């Protein structure tokens, strides 16, 4: 088995078990235009464990069986209008029942202002209430995506991660094989470094992996014999980015004459990371081979395949066609130009 695959098997993925409401609020307040309505820091220490949200229509109507109270509760127009039209005594009853649960926090959408009674109960029970001008479906989508990301599987992987022509190339290989030097060379040619040496990889939705650097190290890089350099301060903003989808894994390895490297590119190898299958390219290196240019070609070829043109398949199909024609006596090995005219172009 390939070494990287062995490493991947031995690494346990990391998943957050919970986040605090405080963390959620600080991350969400500007992005999703949240304003806190409850007093002070009341209830901000509450814990969110579930990546789903809940709209508590039925719970407000009195049915609390299967009420997933431990999720973020989102009250939109329906819930608020329902509460408003209830007779006062019924409303009190409904709210009291609702607030008797240990709810992490409540978000009101469409700028639906809560009644005084609502806020009073929330303050008494230490349950934070937030309000946003966003509409419910949009807000629910944002929050779902945010929570999905917070609770996603993560691993730390060693390698250099570069955006080459918009394709996220992850270079792996034994330490000292020259990953950082290739990354530097690519940056020099106008591509953008995401992270060097240590890349935090997270699963984002099904089939998508995202990579970033670590908070501390960001775009620092070690070059053997030089020490630590900062790519951002040396090359400027054009040379970096903070996150990128991981699209191709390029494995740098010493040329091994016993190993079979792909010669056509038809036999695509893949590697599974956090349950996502990615193209896996074994790139043999030896002196005089320009890995940077080859990396650019890897990216461009990936794009070309993405847009529907697979060169290996195209040539293979042409060959099939030619053999078919030949059997009808039409084609022979020969020049691609029938008649060489005088301009010798």
């Amino acid at each position, binding site marked *: 088995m390939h070494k990287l695959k062995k490493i991947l098997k*031995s*690494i*346990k993925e*990391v998943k957050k078990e919970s986040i605090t409401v405080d963390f959620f609020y600080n991350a969400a307040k500007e992005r999703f235009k949240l304003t806190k309505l409850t007093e002070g820091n009341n209830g901000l220490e509450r814990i969110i464990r579930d990546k789903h949200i809940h709209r508590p229509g039925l719970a407000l109507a009195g049915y609390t069986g299967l009420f997933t109270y431990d999720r973020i509760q989102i009250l939109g127009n329906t819930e608020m209008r329902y509460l408003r039209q209830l007779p006062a005594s019924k409303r009190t009853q409904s709210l009291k029942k609702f607030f008797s649960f240990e709810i992490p926090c409540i978000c009101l959408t469409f700028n639906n202002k809560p009644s005084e009674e609502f806020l009073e109960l929330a303050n008494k029970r230490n349950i934070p209430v937030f309000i946003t001008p966003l509409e419910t479906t949009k807000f629910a989508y944002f929050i779902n995506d945010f929570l999905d990301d917070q609770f996603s599987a*993560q*691993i*730390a992987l*060693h390698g250099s991660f570069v955006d080459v022509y918009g394709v996220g190339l992850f270079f792996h290989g034994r*330490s000292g094989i020259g990953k950082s030097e290739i990354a530097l060379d690519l940056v020099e040619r106008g591509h953008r470094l995401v992270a*060097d*040496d*240590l890349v*935090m990889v997270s699963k984002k939705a099904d089939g998508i992996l995202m990579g970033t650097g*670590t908070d*501390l*190290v960001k775009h*620092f*890089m*070690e070059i053997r014999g030089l020490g*630590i350099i900062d790519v951002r301060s040396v090359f400027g903003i054009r040379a970096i980015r903070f996150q990128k989808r991981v699209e191709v894994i390029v494995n740098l390895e010493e040329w091994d004459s016993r190993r079979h490297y792909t010669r056509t590119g038809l036999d695509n190898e893949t590697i599974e990371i956090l349950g996502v299958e990615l193209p896996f390219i074994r790139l043999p290196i030896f002196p005089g081979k320009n890995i940077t240019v080859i990396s650019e070609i890897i990216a461009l070829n990936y794009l070309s395949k993405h847009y529907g043109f697979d060169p290996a398949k195209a040539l293979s199909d042409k060959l099939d066609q030619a053999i078919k024609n030949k059997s009808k006596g039409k084609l022979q090995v020969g020049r691609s130009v029938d008649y060489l005219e005088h301009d010798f172009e």
Partner: protein
Amino acid sequence: MIEKKVRIINKAGMHTRPASQLVKIAAKYKADFYIIKDGFQINGKSIIGVMSLAAEEGSELTLKFDGPDEKSAASEIIKFFEEGFGEP
């Protein structure tokens, strides 16, 4: 494979000097050397990796050694941790 839990005992934590010393020691050996903190496993032979742990005094790390000379690698590196990197 050898696995061992260690604690950072010096005041300054694993700052640049001990980090660079650690990767130098690890590089002498053939065995793979990994450090696990907060569930994330990093390569102990990479200076960027070790520094990004930002391991402070009191933090607990798991060390993993795997390879032909894992025993001698483990004993030298564990000793380095137990001595608080030679710092107070």
